[in-house]
């Protein structure tokens, strides 16, 4: 299973980024092999539709799931349409969240904010 997590920095030591759409980086982890890659979130600097562009990046990376504290409706629509499951993060620690996911303890994110017209922070 491949999982995507928005991060502030290119390291697993720092926390999950609070804002999905404007997260500078996305970390992709292969839970089977443990391989970690970081890709750039091109939506981060968009004037409008940051969440949508970020979601497009997620969809195109062909992951199975993603973990985030929150997400806007527009981004959620794109990601759900591709069949990727969105999990709600349980803390700021990436390692802790990945462990919870492996143990089947992470909940699916249901509290989704309406779109902010591309001005989500």
């Amino acid at each position, binding site marked *: 299973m491949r999982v995507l997590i928005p991060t502030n920095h290119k390291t697993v030591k720092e926390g999950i980024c609070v804002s999905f759409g404007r997260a500078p980086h996305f970390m992709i982890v292969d839970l089977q092999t443990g391989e970690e890659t970081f890709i750039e979130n091109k939506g981060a600097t968009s*004037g409008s539709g940051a969440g949508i562009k970020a979601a497009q990046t997620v969809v195109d990376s062909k992951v199975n799931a993603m973990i985030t504290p929150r997400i806007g409706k527009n981004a959620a629509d794109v990601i759900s349409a591709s069949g990727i499951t969105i999990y709600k993060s349980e803390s700021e620690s990436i390692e802790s969240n990945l462990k919870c996911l492996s143990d089947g303890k992470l909940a699916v994110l249901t509290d989704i904010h*309406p779109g902010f*017209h*591309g001005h989500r922070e």
Partner: protein
Amino acid sequence: MKQLLVLSGKGGTGKTTLVAAFVERLKAKAYADCDVDAPNLHLVMEGLGSPDIRPFYGMEKAAIDASLCTGCGDCKTHCRFGAISRVEASKQSTAFYQIDPYACEGCAVCEYVCSEGAVTLGYQVDGETKVYHDQNVFSTATLKMGSGNSGKLVSEVKKNMRTYTENLERDVAIIDGSPGIGCPVIASISGVDLILLVTEPTLSGISDMKRVIEIAEHFKTPIAICTNKYDVNPEKTREIKAYAKQVNIPYVGDIPYDKQVAVATNQGVSILKVPSRAGIAILAVFDQTIQLLQALEKQKTSASVVDIQFT
């Protein structure tokens, strides 16, 4: 960090006056002026020091290289924003087309349809962001005249406030919003914990207040109302209170009209610095608002209560 946003719908109801007072009373560690079209908060905040200033790049705009333009007019035919006009042939040149950067929305259709490669899109400086951070963090910005990127700039102002204030989980940031309900207001609502709607007891004020309530509800953001200059029309003030009760919105207080507000503003200080009835009333509204924020926080995190700090 919790965020309290002050909106009004109608302009001139007193958002900035209240924000300045709240910041002082709270000894806020972070605050922002998101009224980027007409920023005023810096005029009543003292001891700001020098800010970090950065250029703000809005959206891309198109430009036509007249030397490559053959005057076919395809660009103008396809431009939906009336941004392209024809310059007739003269002794110096054949007819060519030019773009009005104020009307251009950066859609790039002209670049796509141009068969001569005469159109390019590029960024330019549309304003600047300023962050004062000597004592606390104050994030603001100015939009260059003629630019149309208010929403994006508001997002930048809020992002800057967050960047400079990591690890302030227990504090409240106060945000001065803009009038209206469009782009800049929508951008400012993102991530906010509570909107304080400052209205006035006038027909216009009430009408505008209702539209702000609609937008707050659309973005599922809690809202509270207070009435400024309530004594201009006590009957209309009662109407506002009754309306708030009817739609289940907390009413956090009344503030009287007070000439001292203009005195304080013109001295460049918050209303709390001069003796005034308005100042006393504003403090009462402040107390109610912070209590409401704490109650909302308790609702969200019933397991662990995060007490909001203020002195």
